[in-house]
């Protein structure tokens, strides 16, 4: 439920019309992924272990505010994370064909469903949490360990997830784990201390 704002009555004077060119359905994404993941160039970039992050229609380049092609967006960008190469991979699709594929060095894309799912799986199996988190719901957020003065934080430069377990979607974590998806391992885990 969204936070309540003053007044909730929908005003009939709001005129809405769909921009159909911006729609990307789950079926569209599945089709595009199948084509991308079957492409040899993409397979080479992804390596043996990877996760799908997200898909977006590329917005129009520049500020075309008139003419026939304002809303004609040809390309769809698929973003993956290659755990085995520890790098994000961008695939640009034109219709159902791979237009380009490239590594995005240094870019940390948002957490994808596989990032979260794998993070939760590894955390649940960790001896420090095993048997404690089963009735709880797992959540995951991408975090970024720091480069240290004497030594780097554990997981520095890797795809690291902060995994928490809480009652449903209470936003109140009871257990946590730091999961390194690049190494496919749990770096640390424990019980969440009381609120300070």
């Amino acid at each position, binding site marked *: 439920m969204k936070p309540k704002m*003053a*007044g909730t009555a929908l005003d009939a004077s709001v005129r809405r019309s769909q921009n159909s060119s911006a729609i990307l359905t789950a079926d569209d994404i599945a089709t595009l992924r199948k084509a991308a993941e079957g492409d040899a160039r993409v397979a080479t970039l992804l390596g043996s272990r990877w996760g799908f992050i997200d898909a977006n229609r590329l*917005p129009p380049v520049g500020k075309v505010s008139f003419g026939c092609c304002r809303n004609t967006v040809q390309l769809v960008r698929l973003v993956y994370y290659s755990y085995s190469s520890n790098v994000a991979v961008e695939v640009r699709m034109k219709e159902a064909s791979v237009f380009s594929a490239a590594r995005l060095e240094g870019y940390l894309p948002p957490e994808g469903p596989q990032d979260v799912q794998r993070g939760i799986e590894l955390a649940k199996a960790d001896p420090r949490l095993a048997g404690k988190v089963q009735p709880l719901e797992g959540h995951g*957020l991408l975090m970024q360990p720091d480069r240290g003065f004497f030594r780097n934080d554990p997981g520095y430069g890797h795809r690291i997830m902060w995994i928490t377990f809480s009652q449903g979607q209470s936003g109140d974590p009871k257990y*946590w784990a730091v999961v390194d998806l690049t190494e496919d391992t749990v770096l640390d885990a424990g019980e969440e201390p009381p609120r*300070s």
Partner: protein
Amino acid sequence: MKRVVWSGLIVLFSLISAVPSFAETQSEHINWGRWSFDWEVRDNTGLALRDVTYADELVLAKASMPVIRVKYVKDMVWWNPFTWFGSRAESGRCGPFQDRLRWQDLVPIVNCGNQKVCVESATQNNVKWLELGVYGRIGEYHIYQSWHLSEDGELRPVVQSRGLSCNTNHVHHPYWRFDFDINGNGMDQVFVHDDGGPDSGWGPGWRKYTNERNDVKISETHRTWFVRDQLNGHGVLILPGTGYAPLIDDGERDRFADHDVAIRRANVSEDVPWSFGARGQLRYDEDNQGVQEQDIVFWYVSHLPHMAAMGPTKWLATGPTLRIQR
């Protein structure tokens, strides 16, 4: 007769199934009062507005929120000297995080017709407001990101947040990106005003930015900013947020997010998903480009403190005010 009825039903069914699901659209055009704009959710920049016009004149090419950087404090244990210094001071007990809202993070809003993008109008103090909002769920966070437009020319971007990634105090730093295009001709100017400031030719207290730079709020001088079109003088005032209860303002910058506003010359290559990680400050100013009579991007950063003791259920809100001046 039976055949005609069946044919009619088949045609009707095919027409209905050809209409895309209204609730699933990721972009719409909206006309409301004197406002006209598109909204969209794509490219990891939350709920964004495009081609925003007010009273038939272009104001913004795009307004978006590419990231909320989140910094938790470090636990310092008095008996453990290893916790007194070192890299964890820059890290906190968990995080830092870079929250980016995408379509896949949005949930149906149960108190807004189960739509993923809420569009509602309301009246407050005799002024009509239009609200567009999305409810994102990422990690433990519940984030409601919204745009509020008033019939008399105010635009308020707001972020509301609840939930804890770990039980420690932390600060959310939402970054709003306003790609101004006032009157649509790329001749924008950016000014800053301080009460009691000298007159450098633009009126008492007004100064004009000449090059890309970051700047800070000064509450003592009620610092505000003004972006205007050089040709017709129409513009937009940018006012630091005065706070949504229980907060009294939109927070204080810190080492993690060390500025409140940033003025940049617009560049297509910089209209991309947040590229600086959870730890990186906004850049795009390495070449210190001139910003006089140019196509301008104005970034506003607010700083939303969340005390862990408040728990995970209390919504906290932050955001500046933009006011059209003609």
